[in-house]
C-alpha cells in the first residue's frame, strides 16, 4: 500500500522526559488521595450492607488465605496438614505474599485486613504505573486520563479489593510493560525479572511470560542481533513459567493446578476439541462485544454478579478506541521490525482473554477472571482516544487537540464514575451475601459439629479457612485425586469415597445432587441468605454409609461359572484398569454419573451404587479365559437396546425391556466361548438407536464357565 500524502499535522502536546516519582509529586498525591477515597467508599458500602462487618466479596480469597496459612505453618501446598499436596491456590506468588501476614500473627479476620491493604497497595501501584506509562508513550495528559479511568473503573477496584490475586497479577503486568518502555535499548534486565514474577503470579502468567520471551527473541532476530540470544537471562521468564508447571507436576502429578482440573470445563470428561473451540469462541466474542465493546447485558433492577446482566464495565465503543489506539501501532512495530510495547499490549490482551475463554468460559462473579487484563485495555483505549482526537482536530480546524482529547475522555470518565458507584454497591452486597452465608455456616459448624467428625464439603473456602479441621473437598481443589471424579459427577465422587473407605459423617453441600443416593440421612442445617437474588442455600447433612460397598456383589449367580473380572462403573480406578471408555450420542452432551440407592429386582436388599447414564456406548478390556463361554451381568436401572461387539469381530444384540423404575436390574448376556480368543477380551457396547434412548450401567461382572465346553 502506498504511503499517503501527509497533511500538515498539528503539533502534539509537548512531551516531557519522564523521571521518577519526584518529578510529578502533585499527581502522586492525587492518585493516593483517589485510591484512599475510593477504598473508603468500598469500606462504607461493606459496613453498610453487612451491618458493620468487614468481609470480602468472593469465597475464592479464603482459599489463598488457607494455603498461605498452611505455608506459614510449614505445610506448603497441603490442604489438610499432613496430606498429599495440592495446587488449589491459583497464584503461588500471592500465597507467598500473604504468608508474612500469618508470620506476624495476623490470623482469623485480621488476614482480611491484610489482604485488603495489599489490594490498596496494588491499586495505587497500578494507577501510578499506568500514569507513568501514559507519560512515556505520549504525555502527562494521557497519563492522567489513563490513571483516572483505571482508578474509577468499578470492576477493577472490585477485583483489587476482593482479596484475590487480581491486583498482584495486574500490577506485575503493568510493571513489566513500564519496565519494557524504560529499557527498550538497555537489555531488559528489570523487565526480565518482572516477566519471571508474572509467571508465578497467575497460571495465565505462564503463557504471558512465554509470549513475552518469544517477542523479545523475535525482536532480536528481526534486528539481526542474533548474537544477543546467547544472553540466557532473556529466557528466565519462560524458564520460570515452565518450572512452575513442573512444580505442579511434581506435587500433584499434573502440570495443571488442581483448581483448573476441578473447575474448568476443559477437564470435563469426553469434551472434544470442537466443543471446546465452539464454547470458547462464543465466550470470547461475548467478552469482546459485551464487556469490552461496552454493550453488556440486559437491564434488570436486581444486582446479580453471575447473570450477565447489564453492568457498567466500560463505556460504549471502548473496544473501537482500543483498536484505534494500540492496533495500528502494533502493526507499525511489525513493519519497522521493532516489536515492543504495542505488540505486547495487543498480544497479552487478546491471548489473555482467549485463555480465560478457554479455561473458564463462565460469566460468574463479574467475569473476574478477565479483570487483570482491564488495565491493558484501558491503556489502549486512552491511546485510541488520543489518536481519534488528533484526527478530529486535523479535520476540524476550530477544535484544539487538548480540549478535544479531554472532552472525549470526559465521556469515558463519566461512565467510569457510574461504574464505580455501581460496583461500590455491588461490592457491599456481595460482601453481605458472602458474610451472612459463610460466617453463619462457620459458626454453626464450630458450635454443632465435634472436631473429630469428618466433613466432606463442596469447596467452601471460608469454612475451611476459619475452621481448619480435616475436610474432604468434594470438588477436588483441595483434596488430591478428587478433581477428576468431581468432573465426572456425583457417581464418581461416591465411588471415590467408597473406594478409599473415606466415609465422611457429614456433607456440607452448595451444589452436587446426592438426593437419590441414600447417603443423606438427615438435613441438620441450612445456611441461607436472604437477598434480592435467589442464592442457593448451603445444606448440612448427616450421612449414612451403612450401605457402603453394598453394590460390590451381584444378586445373580451361575452354577459352574467363576467370576473372572468386574468393572465398577463410575469408579475411575476400576474403569482405568480396564481401559474403559464411554462416549455420547453427540459429543459434548455432558451427561454425567449418578449414585442411587435402590432395592434389587427379586431381592429386597438395598444397594447403593454409582454408574453412568450413557447415550452412546462404552468399551472395556477384560481378563478372560479363551474358549470358555461367558456371561456378562450388567447392573442397570432400565431397559436396554444395545449392540455388543466382542473383540471387534463378533456382534450380538443385548435387548432387555424390563423397566421397573426405581429398582436395580441385573441383565445377562451370554457370549459364546469361541468368541473369547485370548486372555484379554475387548467388549464394545453401543446403544442401538442413537439420540432416541439412553441407558445406565452401574456394574459389570464377567462370569466364565469353569469347564471349557467349546461351542456355546
Amino acid at each position: 500500500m502506498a504511503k499517503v500524502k501527509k497533511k500538515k499535522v498539528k503539533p502534539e502536546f509537548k512531551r516531557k522526559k519522564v523521571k521518577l516519582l519526584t518529578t510529578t509529586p502533585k499527581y502522586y498525591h492525587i492518585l493516593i488521595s483517589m485510591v484512599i477515597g475510593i477504598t473508603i467508599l468500598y469500606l462504607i458500602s461493606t459496613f453498610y450492607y453487612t451491618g458493620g462487618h468487614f468481609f470480602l466479596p468472593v469465597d475464592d480469597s479464603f482459599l489463598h488465605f488457607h494455603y498461605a496459612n498452611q505455608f506459614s505453618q510449614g505445610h506448603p501446598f497441603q490442604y489438610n496438614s499432613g496430606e498429599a499436596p495440592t495446587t488449589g491456590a491459583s497464584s503461588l506468588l500471592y500465597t507467598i505474599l500473604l504468608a508474612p501476614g500469618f508470620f506476624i500473627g495476623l490470623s482469623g479476620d485480621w488476614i482480611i485486613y491484610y489482604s485488603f491493604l495489599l489490594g490498596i497497595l496494588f491499586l495505587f501501584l497500578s494507577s501510578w504505573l499506568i500514569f507513568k506509562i501514559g507519560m512515556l508513550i505520549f504525555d502527562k495528559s494521557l497519563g492522567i486520563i489513563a490513571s483516572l479511568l483505571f482508578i474509577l473503573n468499578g470492576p477493577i477496584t472490585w477485583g483489587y479489593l476482593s482479596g484475590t490475586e487480581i491486583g498482584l497479577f495486574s500490577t506485575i503486568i503493568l510493571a513489566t510493560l513500564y519496565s519494557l518502555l524504560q529499557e527498550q535499548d538497555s537489555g531488559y534486565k528489570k523487565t526480565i525479572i518482572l516477566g519471571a514474577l508474572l509467571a508465578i503470579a497467575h497460571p495465565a502468567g505462564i503463557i504471558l511470560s512465554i509470549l513475552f520471551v518469544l517477542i523479545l527473541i523475535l525482536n532480536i532476530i528481526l534486528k539481526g542481533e542474533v548474537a544477543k540470544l546467547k544472553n540466557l537471562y532473556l529466557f528466565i521468564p519462560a524458564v520460570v513459567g515452565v518450572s512452575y508447571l513442573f512444580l505442579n507436576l511434581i506435587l500433584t502429578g499434573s502440570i495443571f493446578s488442581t483448581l483448573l482440573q476441578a473447575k474448568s470445563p476443559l477437564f470435563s470428561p469426553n469434551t472434544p476439541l470442537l466443543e471446546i473451540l465452539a464454547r470458547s469462541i462464543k465466550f470470547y466474542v461475548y467478552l469482546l462485544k459485551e464487556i469490552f465493546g461496552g454493550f453488556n447485558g440486559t437491564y434488570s433492577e436486581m444486582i446479580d454478579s453471575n447473570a450477565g446482566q447489564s453492568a457498567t464495565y466500560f463505556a460504549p465503543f471502548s473496544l473501537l478506541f482500543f483498536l484505534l489506539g494500540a492496533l495500528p501501532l502494533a502493526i507499525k512495530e511489525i513493519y519497522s521490525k521493532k516489536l515492543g510495547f504495542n505488540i505486547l499490549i495487543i498480544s497479552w490482551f487478546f491471548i489473555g482473554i482467549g485463555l480465560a475463554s478457554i479455561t473458564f468460559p463462565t460469566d460468574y462473579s463479574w467475569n473476574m477472571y478477565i479483570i487483570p487484563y482491564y488495565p491493558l485495555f484501558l491503556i489502549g483505549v486512552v491511546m485510541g482516544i488520543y489518536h481519534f482526537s488528533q484526527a478530529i482536530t486535523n479535520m476540524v480546524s476550530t477544535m484544539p487537540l487538548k480540549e478535544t482529547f479531554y472532552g472525549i475522555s470526559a465521556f469515558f470518565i463519566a461512565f467510569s464514575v457510574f461504574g464505580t458507584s455501581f460496583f461500590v454497591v455491588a461490592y457491599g452486597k456481595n460482601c453481605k451475601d458472602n458474610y451472612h452465608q459463610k460466617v453463619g455456616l462457620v459458626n454453626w459448624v464450630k458450635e454443632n459439629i465435634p472436631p473429630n467428625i469428618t466433613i466432606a464439603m463442596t469447596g467452601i473456602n471460608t469454612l475451611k479457612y476459619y475452621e481448619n479441621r480435616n475436610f474432604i473437598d468434594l470438588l477436588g481443589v483441595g483434596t488430591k485425586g478428587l478433581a477428576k471424579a468431581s468432573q465426572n459427577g456425583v457417581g464418581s465422587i461416591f465411588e471415590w469415597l467408597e473406594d478409599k473407605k473415606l466415609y465422611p459423617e457429614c456433607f456440607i453441600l452448595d451444589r452436587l445432587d446426592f438426593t437419590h443416593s441414600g447417603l443423606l440421612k438427615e438435613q441438620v442445617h441450612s445456611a441461607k441468605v436472604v437477598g434480592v437474588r435467589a442464592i442457593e442455600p448451603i445444606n448440612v447433612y448427616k450421612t449414612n454409609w451403612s450401605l457402603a460397598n453394598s453394590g460390590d456383589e451381584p444378586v445373580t449367580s451361575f452354577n459352574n461359572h467363576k467370576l473372572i473380572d468386574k468393572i465398577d462403573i463410575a469408579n475411575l480406578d476400576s474403569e482405568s484398569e480396564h481401559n474403559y471408555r464411554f462416549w455420547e450420542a453427540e459429543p459434548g452432551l455432558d451427561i454425567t454419573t449418578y449414585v442411587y440407592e435402590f432395592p434389587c429386582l427379586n431381592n429386597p436388599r438395598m444397594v447403593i451404587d454409582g454408574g453412568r447414564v450413557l447415550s452412546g456406548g462404552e468399551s472395556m478390556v477384560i481378563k478372560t479365559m479363551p474358549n470358555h463361554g461367558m456371561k456378562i451381568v450388567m447392573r442397570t436401572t432400565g431397559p436396554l437396546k444395545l449392540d455388543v461387539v466382542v473383540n471387534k469381530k463378533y456382534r450380538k444384540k443385548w435387548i432387555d425391556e424390563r423397566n421397573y423404575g426405581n429398582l436395580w436390574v441385573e441383565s445377562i448376556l451370554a457370549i459364546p466361548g469361541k468368541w473369547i480368543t485370548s486372555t484379554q477380551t475387548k467388549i464394545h457396547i453401543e446403544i442401538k438407536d442413537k439420540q432416541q434412548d439412553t441407558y445406565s450401567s452401574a456394574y459389570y461382572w464377567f462370569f466364565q464357565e469353569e469347564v471349557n465346553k467349546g461351542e456355546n
Partner: protein
Amino acid sequence: MKGIFKHKEIIWILIITLLVSIFYLCTMFYYTMGHLSTPLDDTFIFLQYTWQLIHGHPLQYNTGDSPTTGATSIIYPFFLIPGFLLGFDKIAILYYTFSLGVIFLTISGWLVFNIGKRLINYKIGVLMCLLFLFNGPIIWVFLSGMDAGLFTTAILATMYSLLLELDDNEQRYKLTIWSASFMTLARPEGFFLAVVIFCSIFLLKRKKSYYFLIPIGLGIGQIGLNYIFNGTLSANTMTAKSVLTKPNVNLLDMVATSGKYYAYILKDIFSGFNGEFSVQMETNEGRQVSVYFAPFSLIFFLFGVLFLILKERSKFGIIVSVCFFIGTLAVATALPFKWHWHRYLIPYYSIFLIVTLLGIYHFSDLMSRAVSSFNNSKYVFYGLSSFLLSFAFLSTIYFGVAYGKNCKDIYFQQMTLGKWIDENLPEDAIIAVNDLGALKYFGNRYVIDLLGLGTKGMARSWVNGAGSVYEHLENLDSKHYPQYFIIYPNWFVFDRLGMLEEEIAQFKLLRPTIAGSGAPMVVYKIDWEFAHSGDEIQSTDILKQLEWYKLVDKVDVGDLESELKHKYKFWESEPGMYYGMNYQDQALKLPCLEELGNVIIDAGRMITAGERMVIDTTPGRDLKIIKRTMTFTPLEVYINDKLLGVWNHRNAEDNWTETVYTVAGRHITSDKTKVRFEIHRELKHHYTCFSAHYWFYQKV
C-alpha cells in the same frame, strides 16, 4: 479451463474453499457419526421437487397433485438435476449438493476478489475475498444444499457486471442484464434487486433499454406462475412462513414489526453485537451469542457507503447501498425471524463485507493523514482488517461446529424418520407432516404438508391457525384423510381433539440445535371418527323451533372455503393481534350443552371485535340465525348494516351451545343479506366470543 487457471487467484480461492469445506464436511461426519446430512430439512424439499421433475412431474410434490411452488427458487432444481442424472442415489446426492455449494462459494469468492480489485487494488481484493470465504454463516448457508449459494453468486455476478459496465457510457449492460435475470430466477427477492438496479441505471445514467425488462419480466413471470398454481402472488413458502400473509395483516403492525426487526439486525447482526452468552448452542434462539461479524462492523460499512457514494463511484455506491437496504428490508418485512442463523439475510452479507472493507480502507486513509504516529495508512488498515479477519476465523470454526450439530439434528430426526416411514408404514399410507422435506423424500409416501409448502391450499389454513388446519383436513375426501400424523405435537391441537389414536413411534434429539421443537417428532395413528361431527345442529330444542323453517345458508367459521364463499370477514379489537398466537382460530372437542351425550369437534374463530358475512336469503321472510359457540358474550346484531338488537344467551361453561336469534322478515330485503355481529360495545376490549358455525333458516 487453462484460461481460468491463468488467474492464479482462482487457485488459492479454490484451495481455501476446499479447506473450509473439508472442515465442515468433517464436522458433519463427526456429529452425525459418519452419516451424510444437511443442516436444514428444507434442502430435501428442493431435492424432492427435482426428483419429481426428472420423473416427469414438475412442481408436483406428490405425484398427481396440483402444482405447488414450495421450492422457492425456480431454477435451483435445474442445477440439481445433473446430480440425479449422474447416478447419485437419494443419499449420495448430498455429496452433489455439497459440491455445488463449494463451486458457488469458489465463484462467489472470485467475484468478491474481482470487485475489490476493481474498486481499489489487488490486495484489497484478496482481503475482501478472505473475509468472505472465512465468514461462518456464509459457508454454513452455501454448504447447506439450499439455493442461497446460487442466489449470492447471482447477486455478486450482477454487482461485478454492474461495476464493469457502469462507467462505460457505450455499454449496453448486457452482462448486467444477464446476471440480473439469473438473480431474479435464483430467488424471488432477486426481482426487487433487479428493479432497483434498472430503475437506478435509468435515473442515474438516463439510460433506457428495453432489455432491462428481461429480468423484470422474468420476475413478473414467476409471480404469474404463483398466481396460476396457488391462486396467490406469493410462492407457497412465502404464504406459509411470512407475516405478510397472516389474516388481517395491517400496515401499521407490519411497519412496526419490520422496523423492530430491521433495527435488531442492524444493531445485533451487522454491528457485531449479537446475543447473550449461553453455554448451549441453539440455532433458532436469537438471544445467544453467535459470531456473525466483528463488533463495530456497521460503523465501517457506513463509512464505506459514504466514501463509495461521495468519493469513489457514486452510481455504483448508490445502487449497491440501495440493493443492500432493499434486500435486507424485504427480509425484515416478509420474514422477520431469527430462525436458522438468520439464513434469509445471509445472501446480503457479501455486499456488507465488501463495503465494510472499503470503509476500513478509507477510514485508515483518513486516520493516517490526521494522526502523526500513523505515518502510513497501512498500519491502521491492516490493524483493523486483521481484527476483522481474526473474527472471521473464529466465525469459521464456530459455524463449523454449528454445521455439524445442525446436520446431526436433521440426520437423527428427519432423515432417520424418513427412512423409518419407508420401512414401516404401508405403501398407500397418507401422512400429514409438519416438516415435509426428508419425510417425503426418503419416506416415499403420499404426504399432506400441514404448513402448506407442498400441499396446495394448506398454507393459508396454516397461517390462520389450528382451527383452519382442522377444517381443511376435514374437508378432504374421506378416502384421502391422512391415516398418520408425523408432527411435533406441541405445534398443533390434535391431542386435545382426541384424534391421536395411538403413538406408534417417536424420534427425539437429546440436545436439539436446529430442530423446530425441543419435543420429539411423533408418529401417530389418527382417529377420524369425529370428522364432520359438527356439521349439523345438535340441539333438539332448536330443531323443534325450526319445524316450519328451511335451511337457506350456513357458514362454517374457520373453514376458509366456506368463509370465502360468504365473503366472511372478521376484525380485531386491536389490529395486528394475529401476530401473537392467542387469538388464532381453534378447533375444539366438547360436549353439547343441550345434548350432553353428543361430543363433537368443531373449529372456529375467537372473535375480539366482530365478524360479518353475506348470506343467501329469500326477501320478506323471517330469518332464524343459529350459532354454535362456547362463550356467552352478548353480540350486537346488524342486518344490512342496521342494528337490530343484542343477542344474549346462556353460559355454556366449556361446552358447545347452540343459540337462536330471530330476524323479522321485513329486514330481509333481497336475496343477499349482509349479516354482522359485533361484541357489545361496552364489552369490547374486555371479552371475546367464539364463533364455530352459523346456520340460517327462513320460514317456508
